[in-house]
C-alpha cells in the first residue's frame, strides 16, 4: 500500500471466499481510483483484528463464507463497530438472511449474479457513501424478518412447552421407535412412556403419534 493510496483513495475490503470475484473486483475498483484489498479468509479473529487496526471505508462481505468464517452475518457488527460501512455481496437468494445482515448494521445488499458493470456501480456508490438501498426496501426486508421470527416463535411454542423428557420421547418417535422400544432403551415402564406420549399429543394438540411426528418435521423441530 503506497502513501498516496492511504491519503487519496477510499479503502475497500473484500471479504469473499470466491477468490476470482475478489480478484476481478480488485482490478476494477483499483482502476476506478479506489484502494481495494482482499481479506484473508482463514481466521475470523485475525480478520476482525485487521479491520479494527485499519478500518476501511467499505467492507464488501459475502454471507456464506464457508470454512473457518462460516456465516458472514456475524462479521457485520464488528465491522460496523470499527467504523466501516458494510455492503453485503450475496450469492444467496434468501431474503431473510440478507435482512438479518441489514439488522446487524449492513447498509445494503447486492446480488453477485447481477451483470458485473451493475455490481461495480453499486459498489462504487456504496463506497462514496450514497444510499444504495431505499428506506422502503430496507423497511420491507426488516419487516419480513420480524414477521418471520414471530411466525417461527408461534410455530415452535408448543414444542418449547414440552418437558425435556417429553422432547426426548418425541425425538425417539420421530426416528421410528415404538413405545415398547423406547421403554426398553430407557429402562422404564411402557406405562411411563405412554403417559409421556399422551402429554406430547395433548400439548401439540394432535391426535396421533404420526401427526405429532409430522408436525415436528413440518416446523423443522426434529
Amino acid at each position, binding site marked *: 500500500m503506497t502513501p498516496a493510496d492511504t491519503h487519496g483513495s477510499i479503502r475497500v475490503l473484500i471479504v469473499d*471466499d*470466491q*477468490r*476470482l*470475484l475478489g*480478484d*476481478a*473486483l480488485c*482490478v*476494477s475498483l483499483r*482502476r476506478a481510483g479506489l484502494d481495494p484489498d482482499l481479506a484473508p479468509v482463514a481466521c475470523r479473529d485475525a480478520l476482525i483484528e485487521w479491520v479494527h487496526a485499519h478500518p476501511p471505508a467499505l467492507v464488501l462481505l*459475502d454471507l*456464506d463464507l464457508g470454512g473457518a468464517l462460516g456465516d458472514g452475518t456475524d462479521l457485520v457488527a464488528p465491522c460496523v463497530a470499527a467504523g466501516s460501512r458494510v455492503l453485503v455481496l450475496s*450469492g*444467496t437468494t434468501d431474503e431473510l438472511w440478507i435482512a438479518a445482515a441489514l439488522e446487524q448494521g449492513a447498509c445494503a445488499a447486492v446480488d*453477485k*449474479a447481477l*451483470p*458485473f*458493470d451493475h*455490481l461495480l456501480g453499486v459498489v462504487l456508490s456504496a463506497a462514496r457513501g450514497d444510499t444504495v438501498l431505499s428506506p422502503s426496501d430496507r423497511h420491507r426486508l426488516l419487516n419480513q424478518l420480524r414477521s418471520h421470527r414471530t411466525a417461527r416463535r408461534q410455530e415452535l411454542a408448543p414444542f418449547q412447552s414440552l418437558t425435556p423428557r417429553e422432547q426426548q420421547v418425541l425425538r425417539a*418417535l*420421530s*426416528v*421410528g421407535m*415404538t413405545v*415398547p422400544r423406547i421403554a426398553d432403551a430407557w429402562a422404564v415402564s411402557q406405562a411411563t412412556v405412554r403417559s409421556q406420549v399422551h402429554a406430547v399429543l395433548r400439548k401439540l394438540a394432535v391426535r*396421533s*403419534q*404420526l401427526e405429532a*411426528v*409430522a408436525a415436528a*418435521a413440518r416446523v423443522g423441530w426434529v
Partner: protein
Amino acid sequence: MAYGVSHSRPIARGLIAMALAAAVVCGLGVWELTSSTSLPEATAVIQALATPAFLAAGALRLARWHLTEESHCVFRGCALLLMGGVCLPSAALAHQVSGLGEGFALVVGVHALSVGAILALVTVALVDDAAHRTALRRKAGLPTATVVAVAVALLLGRHRLPLEAPSQVLVTHGAAIILASAWLTLTAVVLAEARRTAWARSAAPLFAGLASAEVCRLLDQPLTTLLAPAITAAVGSLAAASALADLVRTAQDEHAFAQDLTHELTVARSAICDRDTWRADLAHDARGTLAGIRAAMQTLARQADDLNPATTDSLRSATLTELAHLEHMLRFGRADGDAFDVADVVRAVTEVRRVAGLSVDLTMRPARLRGASGDLSTVLQNLLINAQEHAHGASVRVDVRPEGRVARIVVADDGPGMPLPTTEPAFRRGIRGPHSQGSGLGLSIAQALARRHGGDLELLPTTRGSTFVISWPLAERVDIASRRLEAAVS
C-alpha cells in the same frame, strides 16, 4: 412383525370361552333339573344366556367393519345380530307356545326364515371374498332356498295346520331335520372355502356347533333338549371371543402400520434433507463460481488495454481454475465407486484414442484399483489427447504394472517432448504448449483428479519425448487393511 404372536391366540381363547360357557350352562341346566323346574323353563333360561353373546359378537364384527371397511364383516355382523335378535328368541318361544297350532307354526316359520337369512348372509360374505362366485352360489344356494321355502310354507299354511299332537311332532321334527341339514351343509361349504378365505376356518366350528344343537333338539331326550341351548350358548361365546380377538388384532395392525409409516416418513425426510443441503451447497458454489467467472471475463474484456500482462495472466488462469473447480464440483456429485479393474478402463480409453488415429502400444499387468473409474479414464484420456496434440504422428507406449501399494501407469510418447520452459509448470492450470488447441486445463485437472484419489501424476525428465506416470492406489491395500481390522476385532 411384532404382533405376529397374537394370531394364534384367538382360537385358544375362543375354545376356553366355549368350554367355560358350556360348563356354566350345563351346570345351570343340571341345577335347574334337580330343583324340579320344568324342562322348557330351564331350556329358556339357558337359551337366554346365549342371546347376548351373539348380539355382542355382531356388534364387535360391525365395529371391525367400521375400522377396516371389509364388507364381509358387515354380512357376518348382521348374521350374528339376526342370530341373537330373532333366531334364538323365536326358538325359545317355540318351546313356550307348543300346543297352539297356529301360533306355533308362526314362531317356527319366523325361526326358519331367520335361519334362511343367516345362511344367505354368510353365503354373500363368502361370495364377496371369493373369486369363483358362481360355484359357491350354487353350493350354498340350495340349503338356503330349502329353508326359506319351508319357512314360507309354514307361515302361509299355518291356518290349515292339523292341531293333533302326532302331526305337530312331525312338523317340529321335519323343521329340525331341515335346519340341521342346512347348518351342516353350510359347515361343509365354509370348510371347503377355508383354504381360500381366511375367516372361513374360524367360522366352521360355529356352524358345526349350531348343527349339533339342532340334532340334539331333534333327539328330544331331557338331556339333549338341555344340551342344545348349552351348545348354542357356547357357540355364541366362541363367536364373541373370536370377534373381539379380530377387533384387537385389527387395532394392533393399524397401530403397527402407523409406526411403520412414521419410520418410513422419517427416513424419507432425512434423505430429502441431505439431498436439499447438498443441492443448496452445490447451487451456492456454482453461483459464486459463475459470478467470479463473469466478473473476470468482463474485467478482461473492458480493461484489457489498461491491465499489465501479469494481472491479465493471473485473472485468466484464475478463471480457468474456477472452470476446473466447477467441473470438479459436478464430478463430486457422483459417489466414488468400489474397486475396479484397471484393464477395463485402460482398454476402453486407448481404444477410443486408437480410433482417433493415435498409435498406442499397450502392455498391462492385471490390477484392481479403488476410487472412481471414470476419474482414471479422464486422467488417462487427457494424457493421450495431450500426446496426440503435442507429438503429431508419434506413437504412445502405455504400460500398467502394480508397484507396492499403487498401480503405475506410464504414458510415454516419442514426440518432441515438452519444450523446456513449459516443463516445470506443465501442471499449472491454464498453461498451454505452443501448438495446443486445448484450454490448458487437461494436465492440471488430470493431476488434481489423481491426487483426489490418493494418487499422483508426474512428468518424468527424459531426453526424448514426454513420459507421464500416473500412480493410482490399489484396491488390495484397502482390503488388506480391512482384513487386518477384522482380524484385530475377532
